[in-house]
């Protein structure tokens, strides 16, 4: 037993050739957010508050696809969504279609705490944000030049793009072959965090801008309890990857269900869901158990991730074999 925390900045076809100037800021960011989370857990902050805190931090960092730095819809706008779940009470909150709210995960928390509902979206969610007095900024705040460029490229390619951290290589003679696009939903750069304290209290939170060039009004797996986010008394899970695969695979719930109904360990359950029950190249997740274990499996090329546990273990990584620390 002991506390543990894991966070992610998205799973997908992160190419090994990712240039240093794109890698480093993201590694730094993961390390920074991990430290914030660890410090909070060590000072006995409740896991629900910890995951909200860490995801807020990830949302504020423009390198990840959440909050500022969210990818753009086919109309060049941002529509952000998030969800949060408390493993103890099983209470949850979710939001979609936000355009001005600086921290979607915090609004999701307020839906959970301050309304009789679980999920608010679009105009209704924006109105609620104003009633609650959360920080809002003009939507241009969230739009970065990088994402405008991504959208342009996606439109040129005339298809929905897996959000990965470099421009599409249209010219296949330039090294990396063009990464094939999936049909349907794909997601890279969703952010999420799961945490457990020394008493086995668990929580999970996930946040995203969604898919590059998505249709206005498109909702992915991130705000769907049981798909992108889940927590109960056994474990807490935050998933990322191709939205449709995460939804139809009810990924976050299935990890917990396998632990509960098949008696699998966290690692076994997480590995099973990711490696045996979802198609390759579609999914990654971070999970912690009540006993303080951590699992971060993914079946994509890479996943931006970090974790730490009370026994001193810590890790910041992108690909399978190249741990940064």
């Amino acid at each position, binding site marked *: 037993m002991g506390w543990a925390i894991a966070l992610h900045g998205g799973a997908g076809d992160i190419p090994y050739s990712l240039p240093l100037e794109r890698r480093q800021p993201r590694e730094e960011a993961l390390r920074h957010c991990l430290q914030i989370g660890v410090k909070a857990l060590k000072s006995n902050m409740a896991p629900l508050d910890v995951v909200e805190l860490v995801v807020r931090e990830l949302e504020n960092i423009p390198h990840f696809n959440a909050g500022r730095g969210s990818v753009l819809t086919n109309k060049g706008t941002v529509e952000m969504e998030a969800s949060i779940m408390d493993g103890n009470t099983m209470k949850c909150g979710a939001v979609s*279609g936000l355009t001005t709210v600086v921290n979607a995960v915090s609004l999701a928390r307020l839906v959970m705490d301050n309304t009789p509902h679980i*999920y608010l*979206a679009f105009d209704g969610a924006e109105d609620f944000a104003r009633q609650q007095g959360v920080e809002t900024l003009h939507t241009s705040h969230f739009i970065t030049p990088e994402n405008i460029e991504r959208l342009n490229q996606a439109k040129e390619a005339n298809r929905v793009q897996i959000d990965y951290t470099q421009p599409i290589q249209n010219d296949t003679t330039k090294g990396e072959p063009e990464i094939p696009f999936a049909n349907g939903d794909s997601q890279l750069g969703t952010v999420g965090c799961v945490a457990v304290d020394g008493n086995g209290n668990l929580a999970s939170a996930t946040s995203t801008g969604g898919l590059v060039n998505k249709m206005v*009004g498109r909702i*992915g797996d991130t705000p*769907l309890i*049981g798909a992108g986010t889940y927590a109960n008394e056994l474990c807490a899970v935050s998933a990322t990857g191709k939205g449709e695969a995460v939804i*139809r695979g009810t990924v976050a719930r299935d990890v917990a269900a*396998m632990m509960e109904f*098949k008696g699998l360990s966290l690692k076994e359950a997480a590995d099973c869901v990711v490696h045996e029950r979802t198609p390759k190249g579609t999914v990654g997740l971070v999970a912690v158990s009540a006993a303080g274990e951590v699992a971060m499996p993914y079946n994509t090329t890479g996943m931006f991730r970090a974790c730490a546990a009370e026994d001193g273990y810590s890790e910041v990584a992108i690909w399978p074999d190249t741990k940064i620390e």
Partner: protein
Amino acid sequence: MGGWAIAVHGGAGVDPNLPLQRQEEAKQLLTRVLNLGISALRSNLSAIDVVELVVRELETDPLFNSGRGSALTEKGTVEMEASIMDGPKRRCGAVSGLTTVKNPISLARLVMDKSPHSYLAFNGAEDFARQQGVEVLDNEYFITADNVGMLKLAKEANTILFDYRIPSGYETCGAAVESPMKMNGLPMSVYAPETVGCVVVDREGRCAAATSTGGLMNKMIGRIGDSPLIGAGTYACNLAGVSCTGEGEAIIRGTLAREVSAVMEYKGLGLQEAVDFVIKNRLDEGYAGLIAVSSKGEVAYGFNCNGMFRGCASEDGFMEVGIWE
């Protein structure tokens, strides 16, 4: 193979004092749509087509809380949502925040079949509806006098009200009849959610599920419930098809629709056992009901509240329409 089977519902949680005339009307509607589904199955329509067909019929009829006859938001408007799932490949489609689309379930089907996404909501969904040329009508079309009356009562009581069908004369009888049963903190006499749904397994053993609703009476604008959420209100896979109804928040946190097939798969339970297990163990203090079919041609239902409008039939000649235990 077990042959085809079908179940429909018009909502869980029924006032024990519901006037007999309303009970009769409900049973007649359930019988009619059940027969519609049975005819379709006998002419070898696939499960996914049958569930859509049946739910369209339920949406069009103003009796239950979906399509025309939907419960009203706090602003007196209608916001409809629905989801559909096709068992064989677990393809899914969902919509929320519809204000003009005559048949939300059909738009959900189009999201599944004709868009690169799984879930569209609010303005984006309405735009998509126009692109697809589905039938649209002014929001007023969906609003019934009954519901305008109910909203007024709900506001006076200043509480969230599940859609409750009472003839206009009932209101003059004074306060709602005392009842010891409650749902969502409200006495049963002012609570009766009537989400509609249908699950089908066809002769090929393919399962499908569909759910549609106007949501909670007096809900906040933008509130999304369980009905459009895959894994919560609706789920179908190669083992089973499930549609839920009741307290939306309880269904979401219990990932109710997903649970039935999860315990079938992970615990080896049969359909009825799985339904019973889920109703007993996954609802805690929440109230809900569900209908389910299995790929083997079985049909089952369960609820932990007072009554559920339902009908079921299977190829072996079994047929039943009911409200109470």
